[in-house]
């Protein structure tokens, strides 16, 4: 028998493969299925000057709070139930970060262009708005098939993508069990390297329940490393396993009030390693019992 693939890494291994100034895409959506254990490991590291590409939630906010971010490429940063992300908001209002602000769909088109190794994809989205004013590098193109001017949405190439899924195996097969896989597949495909954290890690996801395979949204050849992080999306949700932790998110937002509180959150809550974090968060059993949000 030939040796089987084993892509298992620790969160620390993943962060060791990242370097200052990288462009990092983060999967999930707002307060949903964010690879927070990997994000926290970045916070604990010396990494800096990152460009973060995301449908942003506390991933973006926390990285801003920790001073890791040079630039955010985003369509929104929000916790949904708490519409304004306090740490992102503070970083913006203090003029601390650069932006490339995008429509949600444009962000996807940028990832899709990179995923298909194209320089751009044409779209009407963004024309007539201030997105063009604040991103002067954007260009329009004339349709070769008719009289129409379109925005040429440039490829958003990622040095690395960080994703969180429900289940993975050592070879890099993944499964998203929640109802919406969001845009994780496009992040995976737009990235040079893709690291996936997971709730459960098994030897193999191979199963005779073929319906499960429909929950696999990107193939393992895109996956560089797999990290086993139970409760790794906390305080965001990871349906159907657990919901977001609203009291935690509120405390997290309140810590944006001043530098002292932010420092305390980073030092005492994020802490020195993930075990400490999870104990503070009420350990995985608390996380597993968090109810799914009802909208």
């Amino acid at each position: 028998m030939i040796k089987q693939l084993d892509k298992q890494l620790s969160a620390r291994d993943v962060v060791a493969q990242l370097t200052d100034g990288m462009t990092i895409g983060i999967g999930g959506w707002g307060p949903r299925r964010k690879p927070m254990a990997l994000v926290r490991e970045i916070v604990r590291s010396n990494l800096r000057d990152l460009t973060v590409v995301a449908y942003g939630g506390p991933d973006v906010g926390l990285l801003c709070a920790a001073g890791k971010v040079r630039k955010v490429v985003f369509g929104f940063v929000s916790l949904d139930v708490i519409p304004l992300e306090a740490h992102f908001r503070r970083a913006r209002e203090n003029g601390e970060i650069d932006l490339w602000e995008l429509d949600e769909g444009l962000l996807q088109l940028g990832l899709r262009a990179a995923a298909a190794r194209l320089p751009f994809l044409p779209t009407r989205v963004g024309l007539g708005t201030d997105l063009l004013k604040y991103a002067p590098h954007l260009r329009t193109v004339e349709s070769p098939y008719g009289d129409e001017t379109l925005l040429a949405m440039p490829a958003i190439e990622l040095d690395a993508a960080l994703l969180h899924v429900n289940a993975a195996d050592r070879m890099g097969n993944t499964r998203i069990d929640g109802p919406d896989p969001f845009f994780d597949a496009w992040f995976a495909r737009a990235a040079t390297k893709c690291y996936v954290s997971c709730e459960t890690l098994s030897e193999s996801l191979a199963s005779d329940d073929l319906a499960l395979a429909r929950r696999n949204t990107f193939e393992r050849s895109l996956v560089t490393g797999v990290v086993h992080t139970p409760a790794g999306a906390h305080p965001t949700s990871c349906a159907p396993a657990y919901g977001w932790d609203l009291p935690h998110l509120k405390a997290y937002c309140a810590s944006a009030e001043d530098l002292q509180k932010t420092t305390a959150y980073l030092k005492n809550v994020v802490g020195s390693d993930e075990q400490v974090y999870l104990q503070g968060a009420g350990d995985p059993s608390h996380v597993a019992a968090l109810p799914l949000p009802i909208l």
Partner: protein
Amino acid sequence: MSDSLEYSLAELMIAAAARVWRDDGEVLATGIGSGPRLAAGLARLAYNAGLMLTDGEAYLVESPVPLGPREVGYCVRASGLMTYERVFDCVWHGRRHALVMPTQIDRFGQANISWLGDDYARPKTQLLGVRGFPGNSINHANSFFVSGHSKRTFVSGEVDMVCSVGYNPAREIPGMRAFTDLRSIVTDLCVMDFGGPAHALQVRSLHPGVSFEEVQDATGFELFAHPEMGLTVPPNAQDLQIVRSLDPHNLRASVVRNNPAPRGS
């Protein structure tokens, strides 16, 4: 008959907002926020059986999902899937009509939910980001729901960040094709549309006890009065029964500050 009904200003607004979808046929109706969401649910049940709604998460539903915590045993019954990726596909295809609550709206119908101030590098107030506004506004029908009609929302000049395309000739790029279709604005004072000269905003109906002058005074730019401007059609008994059943926890009580009744009632 309806004279004897008691209802709040929010319920009047929700019923008025539901009617924005009346003649849309089979489109995805998206209401963001409690008031707009209840309006979409009411529209589906009372005015347009073709409307498609979601559960707010990822599923298409034929029965609007009530707001807030659900009765024990309640199950969302999905008739289809509407992941965010499919929402984008739907947006670009055009069969959608969204009812949203912008922070700022200008005379051109351009709207802002991204940030406030005059320095992009250092905004006075960071809001959400543009979200889907650029794509929505150039691709499909949009209406607005404004719970506090004032010059802070209806700004003079342009909005601080043009997130959504309106009817501003100065913003047109040569060769650009826009499917911009701004329909109605339902506020706590009135209902307006973009049917004035050169798509200017005009008041279609006033809520009870509100004058055109009052609406004009609360707006940062010139409004027109529709020749048949009358009183906003009040909710009927069925409207109220549906809205209340879709909102068992009375989240609509926080749609308008202090949850007033319509004036004079």
